[in-house]
Every structure is written in structure tokens, then in C-alpha cells.
């Protein structure tokens, strides 16, 4: 198997003095869909922020495509950031720009494409996520599910090798959520993009995850790694089985 695209090595995650996760150690393989799961407040989003270089590690390190993102020079970090895409929980679309402008922004700024081709490519990205025709809409004029799709189109603008999703299904109805799952699968299969997803939506996890990394608040770290379908029935840890079976704590 090829080298993992992301390595998290003995990471201590948190903010300032406050440690949320300790000794987190796992790898993300090329082309896989890895879902980070766990109960509320266990540090899923914090771990994601460390993986994309928004939070500096309190200990250990995160290697994205072989680059230690805390030690990387500005140029290296910029290259890493251009090779990844992030769909934030709130979509984080720029409210003053139309959807087309949101998606075209990195294409215009970070490629040599002429403006008209960049805009055409941005339209294609919107088409890929099912938003054909919504070029001139502002983020405030579309629904939550459409915002997620538009955020995904922007995250995919530069055809990143890794896509990160922070709670992609949060706040979506089951049908929209299932459609987004399908879109994630299509992109993963079609473009071979590696996906790292933070979620606690069981239906989504079983539908899309190749592997999960499960975090626990009390343990302050990883308590299980593997196929969610396997873990549901065969994990030796009752906390893991309870989580995937949606059972109250014993």
C-alpha cells in the first residue's frame, strides 16, 4: 500500500493550556473515507482543526502529504492548504459574494487560468454538486443543504487530494443528508479524493465510511479504529458497541 496521505503521530490536541486529546495516533490512506466519530464534546472538531493546520499541536505532530504542518514554512503550508479542501460546519461561504464568485475565487487567485475559464470551471463545480443555475445566488438566498453543497463546490475548486468535512449532515433533513452522502461517495469514487469527515450521524457513517476513528471524552483519546460495521457487533469495548448501536450507556 502507498504511504498514508495523512499521519497523526502522538498528537496532543487542545487550546492553549487546555488539553482535550492525548496521544492520538492514526493514519489516513489515499482514497479512503475516514470518519472521526465520538460523543459530543469529545474533541472531533478540535482534532480536525489540528489536521488542517488551524490549531497548533500541543504535542506530537500532524503530517499532511509528508509535511509537518506545524513546522512547515509559509510556502509549504500554502501548498498544503491548496492541496486540501475544507467544508466547514456552517459552510463558511462569503456572504458578500455570489455562489459562482465563491467557487471561482481560489481558481482566479491560485491558478493561471484566464478569468472566463476559471468562471466556467467554477460553474462546472456547482453543476457537480447539483447547483447548476445557482451562479448568481447569494448564500443568504439558498437553503442550508444548498449551502453545504456550495461549500463543497468551493472546497473542491482546486481539485484537492484531501477533502475535510466538519459535521456535513448537521442541520440537514434526512433526504438532503442522504443526498449529500451520495455526493460524497460519487466524488470519492469518481475523483479518488481522500475524505476525512467529522460526524456523529450514524446513518451517514454506515453509508459512507470505509473506516472510523472513535474518540472518547473520558479517555481523552482514540478508543477504536476500524470498519464501523465490524465495530458495531464485534468491538470488545462496550462504549464503541453502544455508540454504533445507538444504545444508552450501561
Amino acid at each position, binding site marked *: 500500500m502507498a504511504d498514508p496521505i495523512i499521519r497523526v503521530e502522538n498528537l496532543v490536541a487542545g487550546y492553549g493550556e487546555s488539553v482535550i486529546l492525548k496521544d492520538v495516533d492514526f493514519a489516513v490512506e489515499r482514497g479512503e473515507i475516514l470518519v472521526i466519530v465520538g460523543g459530543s464534546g469529545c474533541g472531533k472538531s478540535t482534532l480536525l482543526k489540528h489536521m488542517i493546520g488551524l490549531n497548533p499541536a500541543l504535542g506530537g505532530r500532524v503530517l499532511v502529504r509528508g509535511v509537518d504542518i506545524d513546522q512547515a514554512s509559509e510556502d509549504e503550508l500554502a501548498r498544503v492548504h491548496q492541496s486540501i479542501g475544507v467544508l466547514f460546519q456552517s459552510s463558511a461561504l462569503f456572504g458578500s459574494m455570489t455562489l459562482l464568485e465563491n467557487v471561482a475565487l481560489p481558481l482566479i487567485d491560485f491558478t493561471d487560468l484566464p478569468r472566463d475559464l476559471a468562471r466556467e470551471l467554477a460553474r462546472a463545480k456547482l453543476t457537480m454538486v447539483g447547483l447548476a443555475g445557482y451562479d448568481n445566488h447569494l448564500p443568504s438566498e439558498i437553503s442550508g443543504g444548498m449551502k453545504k453543497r456550495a461549500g463543497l463546490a468551493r472546497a*473542491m475548486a482546486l481539485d484537492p487530494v484531501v477533502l475535510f468535512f466538519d459535521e456535513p449532515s448537521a442541520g440537514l433533513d434526512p433526504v438532503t443528508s442522504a443526498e449529500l452522502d451520495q455526493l460524497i461517495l460519487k466524488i470519492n469514487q469518481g475523483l479518488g479524493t481522500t475524505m476525512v469527515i467529522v460526524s456523529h450521524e450514524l446513518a451517514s457513517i454506515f453509508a459512507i465510511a470505509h473506516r472510523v476513528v472513535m474518540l472518547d471524552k473520558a479517555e481523552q483519546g482514540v478508543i477504536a479504529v476500524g470498519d464501523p460495521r465490524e465495530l458495531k457487533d464485534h468491538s470488545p469495548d462496550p462504549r464503541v458497541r453502544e455508540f454504533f448501536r445507538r444504545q444508552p450507556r450501561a
Partner: protein
Amino acid sequence: MVGPRPAWRRRLSGVQQMTCTQEGFCLAQAAPAPDRLELRLSGRLGLAEFNDLTRGLALALEREGLGALLLDLSGVDYLDSAGALALARLEAQAAQRGVAVEYRGLEAAAQGIKDLLRPEELAKPPLIAPQRQGNPIEILGNSWLSLSRDFYQVVGFLGELLAGGGRALRNPRLVRWGEVFFYMEQVGVNGLPIVGLISFLLGLIMAFMSFLQLQSFGANIYVANLVALAMVKELGPIMTAVLVAGRSGSAFAAEIGTMKVNEEVDALVVMGYDPLVFLALPKVLAAVLMVPLLTLFADLLAITGGLAVGVVGMGLTAQSYINQTLNSINPNDIITSMLKSAVFALLIAGIGCQRGFMVRGGAQAVGQATTSAVVAAMFLIIVADSIFAIVLHYW
């Protein structure tokens, strides 16, 4: 992404023309029949190659009398959505020219990428037209309409605010007094340093400039009158109001605007609160109570600035400067000055809150509301001051 395939630069039989980019892809052309063209693509078809690829494919399509095009992708190592778009563009252009397109060596993965870009979806026109800049008359008309609407809304809001104030007067428990004291501190106490410094410097400058003129008439002592009258009657209330508009009016608009964006105002409504009484009234009350006191403070500091110039620069005694100042103003001037300030405060806080409640959308709308609150407050301060000037003159 299609997986890597070694040695893609293999020899192609029957090729008439072959072009390769620096590190990206090769495009080989062969024409087995006059109306038939074979394009063999190899290498990377990604974002970096998109520009060259679209140009190369468009050029190939311009061939005279072309009826059928075969695209051989068996040598392609990498295809992403940019490469797929280049192929989709080629298909659309070929369809326009009546050229049939056929693929060879299109792997399942590449087909998956192509399927994400359905031609009928790509051709869909925007559902709404882009916003265009109208002609000058249209812009003027729209500005006038927006100004009228704005005026109507401001008057309506101030009316509602006064009605809310009336309700609060009948039932003081409606007012959140803790919030009132908090905003009194924000507007008044925290504003003291900047209001004091600017007023002191203003008094100093005014005294110095007027001294330069009055000394040639031997009328130095009248510098005290000038500073006191100008500050108490006009500049004190206006300067304080402008500073409060910049500090607090904008803050009120941003705070309520952000609450609107986060649906906190909607939450208040469904919980049975009147957002106007809950959010706006404490701010307005605090401003109306504190701005007159700030104005008094500003007047005092400006007179102190004038006194400093009088004593240090003009050789006057502090006693004579203070006596001259007290002779030039009367209690009525001070009361009028404070009354004016209270009205200015009502306008500043009212417009700040109104602009906050008008926010629709996201961060940009909050920024616009903040700017608009300050600009509108300054405009209303000047209008109100003009009205005061006329009324007080004839009263």
C-alpha cells in the same frame, strides 16, 4: 482520479501530428479518413493542463469537413474534474458543429468523473440574472426610493421606541435595569477619556487660534467668551454626539445585527419578549441619561483647554479667565445644551438599534448596518441641531 500508468509516452501508430506540453499531456492527431479524426490523449488531464487542453481540443475541432471524432483516452494517467470539463466542452462544441464524438479507453473511474458533469446541467442558464449597474436616472430613482423608505422606517421605529418607553414608564419592571446600567458604563464612563481628551484639545486649539486674531485688538480676554459660548452652545453637544455615534451607535448596530443573524432576536420574539423593549430600550435609556453628562464633561474640559492657553500663552490669571467664562454663559445655555444632547442621544441610539434590526443576511450586512448607523446618526444630529438653532433663536 485515474491511477498512475507507467510509460504513457508510448509510440503511436499512424500519428500525423503530436504536441506535448512541458510536464502535462500529449495530444496526438491521426486522420484515417478525410471526415474522421482520431485524438489520442495521454498523460495528465488536470487543473494545471486545463487551459492548454481546451485550446488544443478546440483547434483540432476546427478541421475542415470533420464528421466524426474518436477520442482515445487509454494513455491518460490522471483525470480530474477540470479534465472532465475540457472533454465536456469538446462534446458541446462538437455537437454544435454536427461532429459525432466517440470515446475509446475510457475507464470506469474516468467515466465516473465525466458523469458528474452532465452536459444538460452544464448548459443550464443562471436562474437569476447577475446584478447590473442601472443607468444614472435609475440609480437616482432607486436612491430616492430607498431614502424615502429609510425615512419612513426610522420614523416608524422611533415611534415604536417611544411607545415602548411609554409602556416601560407605566410598568418599570419591563425595563432590564441591569442592562441599562451596563450600557450607561459603556456609553458614559468608558467614553470619558476620549471625549475628555478631544474636548480639551479642541478648547486649546480654539483659544489659541482666536488669541492670534484677538490680540491685535487687545481683546485677549474675549477668548474665554468665545471658547465657552462655542463649546456650550454648539460644539460641546455636537462633538460629544459625533463621538458617541462612532463609539456606541455603531456598537449597538453591530450587536443587534449579529443577534439578528444568529436568530437570537427571533428567539426573543417566540419567547414572548418585545425585542424593542428587551434590546433597544436599555441602550436608548442609557444613552439619553449619559450623553448630556458627557456633554457637560466635554464643555468643562474644553474650557480647561482654553484656560491653559489663557494662563500660559496670553498672560491672563486663572481667576479672570474663569470669571469671564462664567459671565459669558448662563444656566439656561447649559440646560439647552444638555437637552440638545439628550435628543442627539435618542437619535444616535435609536438609529443604531434600528439599523441593527434591519440586518438581513450575514457578516457583510452587519458591516453595512454599522456604517449606515454612524452616517445616518451624523446626518440626523446636524438636522436636529439646525432645527434647535432656529427654534431657540425665535423662542
